[in-house]
Protein backbone atom coordinates (compact mmCIF):
# COMPACT_ATOMS: atom_id res chain seq x y z
CA UNK A 1 0.00 0.00 0.00
CA UNK A 2 1.23 3.47 -0.82
CA UNK A 3 2.25 5.58 2.10
CA UNK A 4 -0.08 8.55 2.64
CA UNK A 5 1.70 11.82 1.95
CA UNK A 6 -1.06 14.28 2.71
CA UNK A 7 -2.57 16.21 5.55
CA UNK A 8 -5.25 14.48 7.56
CA UNK A 9 -8.70 15.91 6.99
CA UNK A 10 -10.69 17.31 9.87
CA UNK A 11 -7.68 18.38 11.92
CA UNK A 12 -7.83 21.88 13.32
CA UNK A 13 -4.28 23.19 12.91
CA UNK A 14 -4.84 25.71 15.71
CA UNK A 15 -5.70 23.06 18.28
CA UNK A 16 -2.65 21.29 19.62
CA UNK A 17 -3.46 18.09 21.48
CA UNK A 18 -1.89 18.35 24.92
CA UNK A 19 0.12 15.45 26.19
CA UNK A 20 1.26 15.18 29.78
CA UNK A 21 4.86 14.12 30.02
CA UNK A 22 6.50 12.93 33.23
CA UNK A 23 10.23 12.52 33.06
CA UNK A 24 13.40 12.77 35.08
CA UNK A 25 15.92 15.28 33.77
CA UNK A 26 19.37 15.44 35.31
CA UNK A 27 18.02 13.84 38.46
CA UNK A 28 15.00 16.14 38.82
CA UNK A 29 11.41 15.05 38.22
CA UNK A 30 9.56 17.15 35.65
CA UNK A 31 5.94 17.18 34.48
CA UNK A 32 5.29 19.09 31.28
CA UNK A 33 2.16 19.50 29.16
CA UNK A 34 3.20 19.62 25.52
CA UNK A 35 1.61 19.23 22.11
CA UNK A 36 1.98 15.56 21.19
CA UNK A 37 3.97 16.41 18.07
CA UNK A 38 6.88 18.09 19.85
CA UNK A 39 10.31 16.52 20.09
CA UNK A 40 12.52 15.97 23.11
CA UNK A 41 14.83 18.78 22.01
CA UNK A 42 11.87 21.21 22.09
CA UNK A 43 10.86 20.06 25.57
CA UNK A 44 14.38 20.47 26.90
CA UNK A 45 15.00 23.87 25.36
CA UNK A 46 11.59 25.54 25.33
CA UNK A 47 9.79 24.02 28.31
CA UNK A 48 12.67 23.24 30.68
CA UNK A 49 15.10 25.99 29.65
CA UNK A 50 17.96 23.54 29.15
CA UNK A 51 19.50 25.22 26.12
CA UNK A 52 22.80 23.34 26.31
CA UNK A 53 21.19 20.81 24.00
CA UNK A 54 21.51 22.53 20.62
CA UNK A 55 19.42 22.20 17.49
CA UNK A 56 21.50 21.83 14.33
CA UNK A 57 20.56 19.67 11.36
CA UNK A 58 17.22 18.53 12.85
CA UNK A 59 17.61 15.19 11.03
CA UNK A 60 19.82 13.22 13.43
CA UNK A 61 23.05 13.71 11.52
CA UNK A 62 25.08 16.42 13.29
CA UNK A 63 25.12 15.36 16.95
CA UNK A 64 24.44 18.81 18.43
CA UNK A 65 21.37 17.50 20.27
CA UNK A 66 22.97 14.34 21.69
CA UNK A 67 21.43 13.41 25.05
CA UNK A 68 21.37 10.27 27.15
CA UNK A 69 17.94 8.62 27.41
CA UNK A 70 17.60 5.74 29.89
CA UNK A 71 21.37 5.32 29.73
CA UNK A 72 21.68 5.35 25.95
CA UNK A 73 22.99 8.07 23.65
CA UNK A 74 20.26 9.36 21.32
CA UNK A 75 19.36 12.38 19.17
CA UNK A 76 16.87 14.66 20.91
CA UNK A 77 15.76 16.07 17.53
CA UNK A 78 14.61 12.63 16.35
CA UNK A 79 12.96 11.68 19.63
CA UNK A 80 9.21 12.26 19.68
CA UNK A 81 8.29 13.69 23.08
CA UNK A 82 5.62 11.02 23.54
CA UNK A 83 8.34 8.35 23.63
CA UNK A 84 10.19 9.84 26.59
CA UNK A 85 7.22 9.79 28.97
CA UNK A 86 8.68 8.05 32.02
CA UNK A 87 12.27 8.26 30.79
CA UNK A 88 15.43 9.31 32.60
CA UNK A 89 17.15 12.03 30.56
CA UNK A 90 20.67 13.36 31.00
CA UNK A 91 21.83 16.54 29.27
CA UNK A 92 25.10 18.43 29.32
CA UNK A 93 23.75 20.53 32.21
CA UNK A 94 23.72 17.40 34.39
CA UNK A 95 27.38 16.47 33.97
CA UNK A 96 28.97 18.92 36.39
CA UNK A 97 28.92 18.17 40.10
CA UNK A 98 26.47 19.71 42.58
CA UNK A 99 28.86 22.57 43.31
CA UNK A 100 29.41 23.29 39.63
CA UNK A 101 32.72 21.43 39.48
CA UNK A 102 33.33 20.23 35.96
CA UNK A 103 33.34 16.57 35.05
CA UNK A 104 36.55 14.86 33.94
CA UNK A 105 35.43 15.01 30.34
CA UNK A 106 34.58 18.71 30.55
CA UNK A 107 37.95 19.45 32.18
CA UNK A 108 39.74 17.46 29.50
CA UNK A 109 38.02 19.37 26.70
CA UNK A 110 39.34 22.60 28.21
CA UNK A 111 42.82 21.24 28.88
CA UNK A 112 43.22 19.80 25.37
CA UNK A 113 41.48 22.55 23.42
CA UNK A 114 38.56 20.36 22.44
CA UNK A 115 36.49 23.19 21.00
CA UNK A 116 36.64 26.37 18.98
CA UNK A 117 33.32 28.10 18.34
CA UNK A 118 31.58 25.90 20.89
CA UNK A 119 28.27 25.12 19.20
CA UNK A 120 29.03 21.40 18.96
CA UNK A 121 30.71 21.18 22.36
CA UNK A 122 27.74 20.12 24.52
CA UNK A 123 26.91 17.30 22.10
CA UNK A 124 30.55 16.27 21.85
CA UNK A 125 30.87 16.14 25.65
CA UNK A 126 27.64 14.19 26.14
CA UNK A 127 28.69 11.78 23.39
CA UNK A 128 32.16 11.32 24.88
CA UNK A 129 30.70 10.81 28.36
CA UNK A 130 28.40 8.11 27.02
CA UNK A 131 31.34 6.40 25.31
CA UNK A 132 33.50 6.38 28.43
CA UNK A 133 30.70 4.94 30.53
CA UNK A 134 30.18 2.05 28.11
CA UNK A 135 33.80 1.54 27.05
CA UNK A 136 36.08 2.76 29.83
CA UNK A 137 39.24 2.17 27.81
CA UNK A 138 38.37 2.65 24.13
CA UNK A 139 40.95 2.28 21.39
CA UNK A 140 41.43 5.22 19.03
CA UNK A 141 39.34 3.35 16.46
CA UNK A 142 36.54 2.65 18.93
CA UNK A 143 36.57 6.27 20.01
CA UNK A 144 36.45 7.50 16.41
CA UNK A 145 33.60 5.13 15.59
CA UNK A 146 31.56 6.29 18.58
CA UNK A 147 32.18 10.00 17.92
CA UNK A 148 31.29 9.63 14.23
CA UNK A 149 28.31 11.82 13.50
CA UNK A 150 29.30 14.44 16.09
CA UNK A 151 30.23 17.10 13.59
CA UNK A 152 32.61 20.00 14.27
CA UNK A 153 32.64 22.50 11.42
CA UNK A 154 35.67 24.25 12.92
CA UNK A 155 37.42 20.93 12.24
CA UNK A 156 38.66 20.78 15.80
CA UNK A 157 38.59 17.01 15.92
CA UNK A 158 42.16 16.51 17.08
CA UNK A 159 41.64 18.37 20.33
CA UNK A 160 38.38 16.51 20.92
CA UNK A 161 40.08 13.18 20.31
CA UNK A 162 43.01 14.07 22.58
CA UNK A 163 40.63 15.10 25.36
CA UNK A 164 38.67 11.84 25.21
CA UNK A 165 41.75 9.62 25.02
CA UNK A 166 43.29 11.53 27.96
CA UNK A 167 40.28 10.68 30.13
CA UNK A 168 40.48 7.08 28.90
CA UNK A 169 44.15 6.97 29.94
CA UNK A 170 43.26 8.38 33.38
CA UNK A 171 40.59 5.70 33.58
CA UNK A 172 43.17 3.03 32.80
CA UNK A 173 45.24 4.25 35.76
CA UNK A 174 42.22 4.59 38.06
CA UNK A 175 39.30 2.34 37.09
CA UNK A 176 37.06 3.99 39.69
CA UNK A 177 37.40 7.40 38.02
CA UNK A 178 33.95 8.97 37.55
CA UNK A 179 33.44 10.45 34.09
CA UNK A 180 30.56 12.63 35.23
CA UNK A 181 26.81 12.79 35.67
CA UNK A 182 24.48 10.15 37.00
CA UNK A 183 25.25 6.66 35.88
CA UNK A 184 21.77 5.59 34.77
CA UNK A 185 20.85 1.97 34.28
CA UNK A 186 21.71 0.82 30.77
CA UNK A 187 19.02 -1.25 29.12
CA UNK A 188 20.02 -4.90 29.22
CA UNK A 189 20.99 -6.52 25.94
CA UNK A 190 18.60 -9.03 24.49
Amino acid at each position, binding site marked *: *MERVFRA*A*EGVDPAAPVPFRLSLTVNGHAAVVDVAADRFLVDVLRDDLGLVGTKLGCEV*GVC*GLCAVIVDGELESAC*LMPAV*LVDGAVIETVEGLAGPGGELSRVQEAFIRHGGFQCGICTPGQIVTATSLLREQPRPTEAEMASWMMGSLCRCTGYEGIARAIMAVAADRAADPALDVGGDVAAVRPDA
Partner: protein
Amino acid sequence: MSFDYAEPTSVAEAIALLDGDEDSVALAGGTAFSLLYRQGLIRPRRVVGLRRLGDLQGIQARDDGLWIGALATHRSIERSAVVRAAHPSLADAFATIATVRIRNQATVGGNLAHADPAQDPPVILSALAAVVHVAGPGGTRRTVPVDELFVDYLATVLEPGELIVGILVPPAEAGTRSGYHKYLPRSADDYATVSVAVSVRLDDVGLVAAARIALGGVGSTPIRPLAAEAALIGARPDQPRLGEVAAMVRDAVDPLDDSRGSAAYKREMAAVWVRRALEGVVG
Protein backbone atom coordinates in the same frame (compact mmCIF):
# COMPACT_ATOMS: atom_id res chain seq x y z
CA MET B 1 -1.20 20.78 13.87
CA SER B 2 -0.73 17.89 16.18
CA PHE B 3 -2.11 14.42 16.57
CA ASP B 4 -3.79 12.10 19.02
CA TYR B 5 -1.37 9.70 20.64
CA ALA B 6 -2.33 6.24 21.81
CA GLU B 7 -0.13 3.68 23.51
CA PRO B 8 -1.86 0.28 23.39
CA THR B 9 -0.67 -2.69 25.43
CA SER B 10 -1.72 -5.49 23.08
CA VAL B 11 -1.16 -6.19 19.39
CA ALA B 12 -4.92 -6.56 18.88
CA GLU B 13 -5.55 -3.16 20.41
CA ALA B 14 -2.81 -1.57 18.28
CA ILE B 15 -4.24 -3.07 15.11
CA ALA B 16 -7.73 -1.91 16.01
CA LEU B 17 -6.36 1.63 16.28
CA LEU B 18 -4.53 1.40 12.93
CA ASP B 19 -7.11 -0.59 10.96
CA GLY B 20 -9.09 1.18 8.29
CA ASP B 21 -7.56 4.56 9.00
CA GLU B 22 -5.01 5.81 6.50
CA ASP B 23 -4.35 8.78 8.76
CA SER B 24 -3.02 6.59 11.59
CA VAL B 25 0.64 5.63 11.74
CA ALA B 26 2.56 3.27 14.01
CA LEU B 27 5.49 4.64 16.01
CA ALA B 28 8.36 2.41 17.15
CA GLY B 29 11.80 3.96 17.78
CA GLY B 30 10.80 7.24 16.19
CA THR B 31 13.70 7.93 13.81
CA ALA B 32 11.89 7.47 10.50
CA PHE B 33 8.71 8.96 11.93
CA SER B 34 10.56 12.08 13.05
CA LEU B 35 12.29 12.57 9.69
CA LEU B 36 9.02 12.26 7.78
CA TYR B 37 7.05 14.39 10.24
CA ARG B 38 9.64 17.17 10.43
CA GLN B 39 9.68 17.43 6.65
CA GLY B 40 5.88 17.52 6.43
CA LEU B 41 5.74 14.24 4.51
CA ILE B 42 3.28 12.74 6.98
CA ARG B 43 0.55 14.52 8.90
CA PRO B 44 -1.16 11.71 10.81
CA ARG B 45 -4.36 12.30 12.77
CA ARG B 46 -3.45 9.51 15.16
CA VAL B 47 -0.10 8.05 16.18
CA VAL B 48 -0.02 4.61 17.76
CA GLY B 49 3.02 4.09 19.97
CA LEU B 50 4.15 0.46 20.04
CA ARG B 51 6.64 0.56 22.89
CA ARG B 52 4.38 -1.19 25.43
CA LEU B 53 3.82 -4.20 23.17
CA GLY B 54 5.76 -6.96 24.93
CA ASP B 55 5.01 -9.38 22.08
CA LEU B 56 7.23 -7.30 19.79
CA GLN B 57 10.24 -7.32 22.12
CA GLY B 58 13.21 -9.63 22.38
CA ILE B 59 15.66 -11.73 20.42
CA GLN B 60 15.60 -15.53 20.69
CA ALA B 61 17.32 -18.55 19.17
CA ARG B 62 14.48 -20.91 18.21
CA ASP B 63 14.36 -24.28 16.46
CA ASP B 64 13.10 -22.62 13.29
CA GLY B 65 15.68 -19.85 13.33
CA LEU B 66 16.66 -16.57 14.90
CA TRP B 67 13.62 -14.59 16.05
CA ILE B 68 14.05 -10.83 16.26
CA GLY B 69 11.11 -8.91 17.72
CA ALA B 70 10.04 -5.91 15.67
CA LEU B 71 10.97 -3.52 18.49
CA ALA B 72 14.56 -4.79 18.78
CA THR B 73 16.84 -1.80 18.29
CA HIS B 74 19.65 -1.93 15.78
CA ARG B 75 22.08 -1.68 18.67
CA SER B 76 20.53 -4.63 20.51
CA ILE B 77 20.96 -6.71 17.34
CA GLU B 78 24.55 -5.48 16.95
CA ARG B 79 25.40 -6.47 20.53
CA SER B 80 23.33 -9.64 20.93
CA ALA B 81 25.40 -12.75 21.55
CA VAL B 82 22.44 -14.78 20.25
CA VAL B 83 22.52 -12.93 16.92
CA ARG B 84 26.30 -13.19 16.62
CA ALA B 85 26.24 -16.93 17.30
CA ALA B 86 23.58 -17.56 14.64
CA HIS B 87 24.55 -15.04 11.93
CA PRO B 88 27.77 -13.10 12.57
CA SER B 89 27.32 -11.15 9.32
CA LEU B 90 23.99 -9.85 10.64
CA ALA B 91 25.56 -8.51 13.84
CA ASP B 92 28.43 -7.02 11.80
CA ALA B 93 26.06 -5.36 9.34
CA PHE B 94 23.96 -3.80 12.09
CA ALA B 95 27.12 -2.43 13.73
CA THR B 96 27.75 -0.35 10.58
CA ILE B 97 24.39 1.42 10.51
CA ALA B 98 24.53 5.22 10.73
CA THR B 99 25.75 6.32 14.18
CA VAL B 100 25.48 4.87 17.66
CA ARG B 101 22.70 7.41 18.38
CA ILE B 102 20.55 6.08 15.55
CA ARG B 103 21.34 2.45 16.38
CA ASN B 104 20.24 2.99 19.99
CA GLN B 105 16.87 4.30 18.87
CA ALA B 106 15.84 2.78 15.54
CA THR B 107 14.10 -0.61 15.48
CA VAL B 108 14.27 -3.38 12.90
CA GLY B 109 10.49 -3.50 12.47
CA GLY B 110 10.31 0.24 11.99
CA ASN B 111 13.18 0.11 9.54
CA LEU B 112 11.49 -2.50 7.36
CA ALA B 113 8.13 -0.70 7.44
CA HIS B 114 9.88 2.55 6.46
CA ALA B 115 11.17 0.82 3.29
CA ASP B 116 14.04 3.14 2.47
CA PRO B 117 16.06 1.30 -0.22
CA ALA B 118 19.30 3.01 0.82
CA GLN B 119 19.22 1.64 4.37
CA ASP B 120 21.12 -1.42 5.52
CA PRO B 121 18.79 -3.89 7.29
CA PRO B 122 16.66 -4.86 4.25
CA VAL B 123 19.78 -5.78 2.28
CA ILE B 124 21.46 -8.08 4.78
CA LEU B 125 18.13 -9.57 5.88
CA SER B 126 17.25 -10.31 2.25
CA ALA B 127 20.55 -12.11 1.67
CA LEU B 128 19.89 -14.19 4.79
CA ALA B 129 16.40 -15.13 3.51
CA ALA B 130 14.67 -13.54 6.49
CA VAL B 131 10.88 -13.64 6.70
CA VAL B 132 8.71 -10.86 8.13
CA HIS B 133 5.87 -11.92 10.44
CA VAL B 134 2.85 -9.66 10.16
CA ALA B 135 -0.25 -9.40 12.34
CA GLY B 136 -3.48 -8.08 10.89
CA PRO B 137 -7.08 -7.31 11.78
CA GLY B 138 -9.15 -10.07 13.35
CA GLY B 139 -6.12 -11.89 14.74
CA THR B 140 -4.83 -12.85 11.28
CA ARG B 141 -1.16 -13.59 10.77
CA ARG B 142 0.85 -13.86 7.58
CA THR B 143 4.48 -14.05 6.58
CA VAL B 144 6.28 -12.09 3.87
CA PRO B 145 9.86 -12.81 2.75
CA VAL B 146 11.90 -9.64 3.24
CA ASP B 147 12.69 -9.48 -0.46
CA GLU B 148 8.95 -9.45 -1.27
CA LEU B 149 8.08 -6.77 1.31
CA PHE B 150 9.02 -3.71 -0.72
CA VAL B 151 7.06 -2.43 -3.71
CA ASP B 152 8.52 1.05 -4.22
CA TYR B 153 10.39 3.84 -2.48
CA LEU B 154 8.99 4.05 1.09
CA ALA B 155 6.21 1.61 0.17
CA THR B 156 5.56 -1.97 1.26
CA VAL B 157 2.94 -4.66 0.68
CA LEU B 158 1.61 -4.02 4.20
CA GLU B 159 -2.02 -2.90 4.34
CA PRO B 160 -3.47 -0.40 6.82
CA GLY B 161 -4.04 -2.31 10.04
CA GLU B 162 -1.12 -4.65 9.48
CA LEU B 163 1.80 -4.58 11.87
CA ILE B 164 5.23 -6.20 11.69
CA VAL B 165 5.63 -8.27 14.87
CA GLY B 166 9.04 -9.75 14.17
CA ILE B 167 11.54 -11.22 11.75
CA LEU B 168 12.59 -14.86 11.51
CA VAL B 169 16.03 -15.52 10.06
CA PRO B 170 16.26 -19.20 9.07
CA PRO B 171 19.26 -21.20 10.26
CA ALA B 172 22.25 -21.07 7.93
CA GLU B 173 23.10 -24.46 6.42
CA ALA B 174 26.51 -25.74 7.48
CA GLY B 175 29.25 -24.21 5.38
CA THR B 176 27.31 -21.07 4.46
CA ARG B 177 29.34 -17.87 4.48
CA SER B 178 27.85 -14.43 4.27
CA GLY B 179 29.02 -10.84 4.35
CA TYR B 180 27.86 -7.25 4.03
CA HIS B 181 29.73 -4.45 2.30
CA LYS B 182 28.95 -0.75 2.03
CA TYR B 183 30.61 1.51 -0.48
CA LEU B 184 30.91 4.81 1.39
CA PRO B 185 32.93 7.36 -0.59
CA ARG B 186 31.84 10.28 1.61
CA SER B 187 31.58 9.54 5.33
CA ALA B 188 31.16 6.34 7.30
CA ASP B 189 27.76 7.34 8.69
CA ASP B 190 26.36 8.21 5.26
CA TYR B 191 23.88 6.14 3.31
CA ALA B 192 25.83 3.78 1.10
CA THR B 193 26.33 4.67 -2.56
CA VAL B 194 25.94 0.92 -3.08
CA SER B 195 25.53 -1.78 -0.45
CA VAL B 196 25.89 -5.50 -1.09
CA ALA B 197 25.07 -8.57 0.99
CA VAL B 198 25.95 -12.08 -0.15
CA SER B 199 25.35 -15.52 1.29
CA VAL B 200 27.03 -18.49 -0.40
CA ARG B 201 27.44 -22.18 0.36
CA LEU B 202 29.98 -24.32 -1.47
CA ASP B 203 29.65 -28.11 -1.80
CA ASP B 204 32.34 -30.67 -1.01
CA VAL B 205 34.13 -30.16 -4.34
CA GLY B 206 34.02 -26.37 -4.29
CA LEU B 207 31.01 -25.74 -6.51
CA VAL B 208 28.35 -23.26 -5.45
CA ALA B 209 25.41 -25.10 -3.87
CA ALA B 210 23.43 -22.04 -2.79
CA ALA B 211 23.79 -18.28 -3.34
CA ARG B 212 21.83 -15.17 -2.51
CA ILE B 213 22.84 -11.63 -3.44
CA ALA B 214 21.08 -8.43 -2.38
CA LEU B 215 21.87 -4.80 -3.17
CA GLY B 216 20.80 -1.50 -1.62
CA GLY B 217 20.93 2.06 -2.96
CA VAL B 218 20.61 1.02 -6.59
CA GLY B 219 16.85 1.03 -7.12
CA SER B 220 13.56 2.07 -5.59
CA THR B 221 13.64 -1.12 -3.50
CA PRO B 222 16.44 -3.44 -2.41
CA ILE B 223 17.29 -5.63 -5.40
CA ARG B 224 18.10 -9.32 -5.73
CA PRO B 225 19.84 -10.04 -9.05
CA LEU B 226 18.24 -13.44 -9.63
CA ALA B 227 19.97 -14.19 -12.94
CA ALA B 228 23.36 -13.50 -11.34
CA GLU B 229 22.50 -15.84 -8.46
CA ALA B 230 21.45 -18.53 -10.91
CA ALA B 231 24.71 -18.16 -12.81
CA LEU B 232 26.58 -19.05 -9.64
CA ILE B 233 24.65 -22.20 -8.75
CA GLY B 234 26.54 -25.33 -9.72
CA ALA B 235 29.50 -23.29 -10.92
CA ARG B 236 33.04 -23.04 -9.68
CA PRO B 237 33.36 -19.47 -8.35
CA ASP B 238 36.60 -18.70 -10.16
CA GLN B 239 37.57 -15.26 -11.51
CA PRO B 240 35.99 -15.71 -14.98
CA ARG B 241 32.70 -16.80 -13.44
CA LEU B 242 32.70 -13.98 -10.87
CA GLY B 243 33.33 -11.56 -13.73
CA GLU B 244 30.29 -12.90 -15.60
CA VAL B 245 28.18 -12.64 -12.44
CA ALA B 246 29.32 -9.06 -11.85
CA ALA B 247 28.36 -8.14 -15.42
CA MET B 248 24.87 -9.56 -14.84
CA VAL B 249 24.55 -7.44 -11.68
CA ARG B 250 25.34 -4.33 -13.71
CA ASP B 251 22.26 -5.07 -15.82
CA ALA B 252 20.03 -6.03 -12.89
CA VAL B 253 20.24 -2.79 -10.92
CA ASP B 254 18.25 0.37 -11.62
CA PRO B 255 19.96 3.29 -9.87
CA LEU B 256 19.19 7.02 -10.04
CA ASP B 257 21.59 9.93 -10.40
CA ASP B 258 22.01 11.70 -7.07
CA SER B 259 24.62 13.28 -4.82
CA ARG B 260 26.14 9.85 -4.14
CA GLY B 261 26.94 9.26 -7.80
CA SER B 262 25.55 9.02 -11.30
CA ALA B 263 23.41 6.07 -12.29
CA ALA B 264 26.19 4.82 -14.57
CA TYR B 265 28.75 5.04 -11.76
CA LYS B 266 26.48 3.17 -9.34
CA ARG B 267 26.01 0.38 -11.92
CA GLU B 268 29.77 -0.03 -12.11
CA MET B 269 30.14 0.08 -8.34
CA ALA B 270 27.37 -2.50 -7.93
CA ALA B 271 29.31 -4.87 -10.15
CA VAL B 272 32.62 -4.13 -8.41
CA TRP B 273 31.24 -4.58 -4.90
CA VAL B 274 29.29 -7.76 -5.67
CA ARG B 275 32.49 -9.26 -7.04
CA ARG B 276 34.44 -8.20 -3.95
CA ALA B 277 31.72 -9.49 -1.64
CA LEU B 278 31.68 -12.86 -3.42
CA GLU B 279 35.48 -13.08 -3.32
CA GLY B 280 35.22 -12.51 0.42
CA VAL B 281 33.02 -15.56 0.98
CA VAL B 282 34.36 -18.10 -1.56
CA GLY B 283 38.10 -17.57 -1.02
